């Protein structure tokens, strides 16, 4: 348990030493999402309709952006070896790294999403639904991303490979996350979508750290 906390705190401290690098995913998220009105035209009705999809796709891509470095840095400088032989289990390492990744990429997205919602003319309630969806969905992206990142350790040009492994697995999150807001906007209850997102979160929280741990043991 001590090891888990130590790794988590160290990752947060490392991010604080390189603030520009740490903020990159959020900047990408905002910039990419705000390009859409220029591309598809400024009609408020259409923007409002496609907003949840845009926010979710951009959130997905932005959290993929930071996956490559999740284990690669620790792998190349030998920190990962030290973590794995230290008596801290590989599972604890995986949980710590996923939590750190979510705190640095998922949480900031969640916090800036209302701004994007307003930009696209979404109503306050709909923004609430969007945020709840992101709260349930973004941890799934970090958990699945951890598996992809650990599997590709030691290989070259991993960015695309990670995308190919992880993106297909993330599609259900995208569907139910964006679907919750769309359902709410046509007057249906979004609870069903939330239950499904919650189920995905539970499933990946139980399975992904185990898979990541095995991948780490193989790769190191």
């Amino acid at each position: 348990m001590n090891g888990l906390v130590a790794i988590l705190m160290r990752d947060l401290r490392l991010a604080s030493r390189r603030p520009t690098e740490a903020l990159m995913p959020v900047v990408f998220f905002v910039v990419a999402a705000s390009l859409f009105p220029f591309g598809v035209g400024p009609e408020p009705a259409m923007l409002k309709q496609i907003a949840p999809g845009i926010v979710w796709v951009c959130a997905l891509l932005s959290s993929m952006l930071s996956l490559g470095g999740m284990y690669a840095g620790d792998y190349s400088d030998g920190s990962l070896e030290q973590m794995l032989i230290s008596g801290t289990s590989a599972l604890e390492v995986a949980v710590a790294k996923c939590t750190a990744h979510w705190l640095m990429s998922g949480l900031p997205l969640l916090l800036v999403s209302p701004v994007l919602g307003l930009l696209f003319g979404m109503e306050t309630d709909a923004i609430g639904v969007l945020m709840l969806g992101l709260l349930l969905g973004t941890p799934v992206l970090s958990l699945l991303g951890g598996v992809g990142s650990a599997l590709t350790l030691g290989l070259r040009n991993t960015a695309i490979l990670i995308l190919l492994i992880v993106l297909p697995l993330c599609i259900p999150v995208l569907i139910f996350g964006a679907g919750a807001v769309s359902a709410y906007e046509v007057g249906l209850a979004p609870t069903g979508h939330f239950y499904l997102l919650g189920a995905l979160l539970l499933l990946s929280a139980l399975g992904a750290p185990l898979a990541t741990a095995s991948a780490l043991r193989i790769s190191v």
Partner: protein
Amino acid sequence: MGDVMRAQDLTVRRGAEVLFKPLNFELRSGQLTWLRGSNGSGKTSLLRVVAGLTQADSGNLTWNGEPMSAASDYRARLLYLGHANGLKDDLSAMESLQFLTTLRGVRHSSERLQAALQRTGVAHRRKLATRMLSQGQRRRVVLARLALETGPGFWVLDEPFDALDDAGVALVQELFQENVQRGGSVLFTSHIAIEAAATPIQELRLQGMKVR
């Protein structure tokens, strides 16, 4: 007292190639063991197996008669230093050292850490990010982990003398002696000859599979 690691018919593969002839050895407490072999003979691979990072291809490795995976006290005794230092560029020497020791479940006061860095001669650089340090200084930061040890440790060190100056080499030998006197043991590789000090050094030679 009297811990023993025993290897029987140990072989290690890299890809399809078997690296060395089946190996039998015993590492006892109070022993210094110099692992020797030519480049590519599998020294690092063997050290990684001993450290539990990878599995041997065949044969078995036991700690006090128990298989390595079941030996719970082994992890606590093991201190492994690989080619890569395990330091983060953006953390200071103190922070790195604190992190690496906390991982092993020991929390040292900053005075202890500072004293260890003092001993390895990098205390004046303790607050600098390690990316600002030279290769030798980084090595000295890592070697401060050896100076922090108080119990009989099982040290597995890959080229600990790399990038060190003469004074550094002497210091590491001194640390070896201290560990051996506490009843620990050291398994290391080195390209430079180590003078036999108070403790005789046992040599373990790796012989390649190919006839040269």
